[in-house]
């Protein structure tokens, strides 16, 4: 027996798409893919998620865009990106040539813009899934963010689903800044979402007590890093409990394999690594290894057996392995 045969079957499914393992990069945290590929082969991950692609190029927000917070960071980059033309011309082909499974994140200011983006992606080779970044202001609703409202989110998802190839799953990226994340999740699934990704950054504000001004030029920013992990685990937990059949990509402050395992036990079948990539360019592959080791150490033979396992009733025993081998 060769040593590099994995002890644990790490395969997972994003709807009907099989991923070799559950670890992906998180949207907006892994650049074009070229930057990280200087450090490791991106093909080793379950998938690479692109930054959010918009119709037109976007210059983003003014600087300062980032400030460090306890166990996290607050950022307001403002979806800086090249626009769909340049993405299809330069970025996606580079990923496709290397057979890197690619989840394309899209963002728009209206349902029509999301739909137009999905239509442009429909013919492009190398799109494994489309992730709909719903944390974008709706210009037709006085800038209210789509993700805040189940009906607006569902409308975007349904429209994107209707123009996307049947074999490309549509993933709805949910924000935790809502009163009822389960209601928004259910609306997205009813609208045709094949999977859900959560959480996007909750909003925060930092004030520099020396300059007596907000630390970010944009005033508020998205909070990420280990500081938000319990929030992510809570959202995954609630949505998995309500919609146990829906695949969930868990995102939020995953720094180690142990953190990824926590999201999986809460109900995620895949885990995206974001802020950890800023801290450690090799974080994603390290987390994959650590997760595999954590599963093996607890006697798991398949990742799938651990998904949502923390939901089992108390007293049902830790000897789940006998049960799962049925």
């Amino acid at each position: 027996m060769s040593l590099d045969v994995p002890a644990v079957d790490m395969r997972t499914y994003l709807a009907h798409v099989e991923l070799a393992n559950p670890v992906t990069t998180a949207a907006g945290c892994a650049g074009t893919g070229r930057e990280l590929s200087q450090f490791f082969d991106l093909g080793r991950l379950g998938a690479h998620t692109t930054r959010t692609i918009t119709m037109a190029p976007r210059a983003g927000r003014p600087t300062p865009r980032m400030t460090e917070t306890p166990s996290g960071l607050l950022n307001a980059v403002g979806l800086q990106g090249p626009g769909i033309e340049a993405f299809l011309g330069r970025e996606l082909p580079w990923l496709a040539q290397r057979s890197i499974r690619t989840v394309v994140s899209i963002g728009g200011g209206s349902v029509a813009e999301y739909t137009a983006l999905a239509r442009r992606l429909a013919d492009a080779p190398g799109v494994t899934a489309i992730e709909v970044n719903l944390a974008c202001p709706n210009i037709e609703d006085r800038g209210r963010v789509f993700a805040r409202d189940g009906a607006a989110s569902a409308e975007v998802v349904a429209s994107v689903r209707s123009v996307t190839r049947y074999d490309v799953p549509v993933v709805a990226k949910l924000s935790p800044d809502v009163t009822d994340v389960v209601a928004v999740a259910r609306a997205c699934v009813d609208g045709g979402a094949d999977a859900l990704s959560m959480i996007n950054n909750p909003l925060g504000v930092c004030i520099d007590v020396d300059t007596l001004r907000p630390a970010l030029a944009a005033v508020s920013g998205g909070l990420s890093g280990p500081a938000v992990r319990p929030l992510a685990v809570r959202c995954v937990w609630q949505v998995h409990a309500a919609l146990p059949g829906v695949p969930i990509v868990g995102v939020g402050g995953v720094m180690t394999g142990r953190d990824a395992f926590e999201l999986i036990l809460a109900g995620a079948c895949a885990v995206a690594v974001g802020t950890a990539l800023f801290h450690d360019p090799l974080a994603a592959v390290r987390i994959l290894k650590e997760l595999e080791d954590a599963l093996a150490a607890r006697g798991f033979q398949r990742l799938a057996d651990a998904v949502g396992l923390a939901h089992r009733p108390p007293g049902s025993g830790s000897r789940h392995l006998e049960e799962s081998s049925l």
Partner: protein
Amino acid sequence: MGGSPQQVTGTVLTTRRVDAYHALTVVAPGIAERFRPGHFVSVSVGGPGTSMVTRRALAVHDVKPDYGGTVEFVVAVRGPGTAWLADRRARDTLDLVGPLGRPFPLPRDPVNCVLVGGEYGSATLFALADALQRRHCRVDFVLGAAAADRVFGALRARRVGETTTLTTEDGSLGLRGRVADVLPGVVTDVHADVIYACGPMAMLREVTAVGIDFDIPVQVAVEEAMACGIGVCMTCVLPVIGDDGVTRMVRACADGPVFRGERVRFEDVGTIPFDALGAPGGGGSARHVT
């Protein structure tokens, strides 16, 4: 640009205090052998399980072949992360990534170069000076800071450069004033063909203006706040005019830190210029004329 960056666990060899700064020499062979002047390194702070999730970008002062390759970088204590770095001692280990960024372009011919450093920005200039002198370039230094203890590398500059001019804003060392006040005189005296500069943004702006006045090229290495140092976090951007005349918000870490001074829109740093590619309101088609 000098090979791909490496992530290494480096062992601290020595630490020393240099005026207001701390210099750490770390054994990091993979980084040292790929280093070229202008490159920087990033370091994780706080140790395993740290609550500080962003890396600190540091200027490389020196690279030596000892112990397979060492890197010396300079730290100015500005917060808990840099304070933790300043507390490192010999035999401690550090998580380093480097070399990062694009290095300084070097002239093909032996020309006269003025190297301008502000605060600890001058740390980056000494490896450059060595490389220029190997190409038989003349090197003159202009170094400045707010006060004497914040001028980094004055002694080494005096040893290495043909001439060294020092300025402090409080007059505690050299001439009272700023580097841009004395730079025109130095450029004239040494018949400078090119200026290299590293330091705070305001200084680089003034130095670039001098270069434009004399119609000589200026290469600047910018210092922007960075989270990742490898080009994925998109937080260290500044407006720079491309070869096609279009202004883009480019990353100081991956597209820089070295830029041609006249291409950097210093007056617009901290904003999105209306004519930048992708600016709100549909910028990017207009051409910026300098």
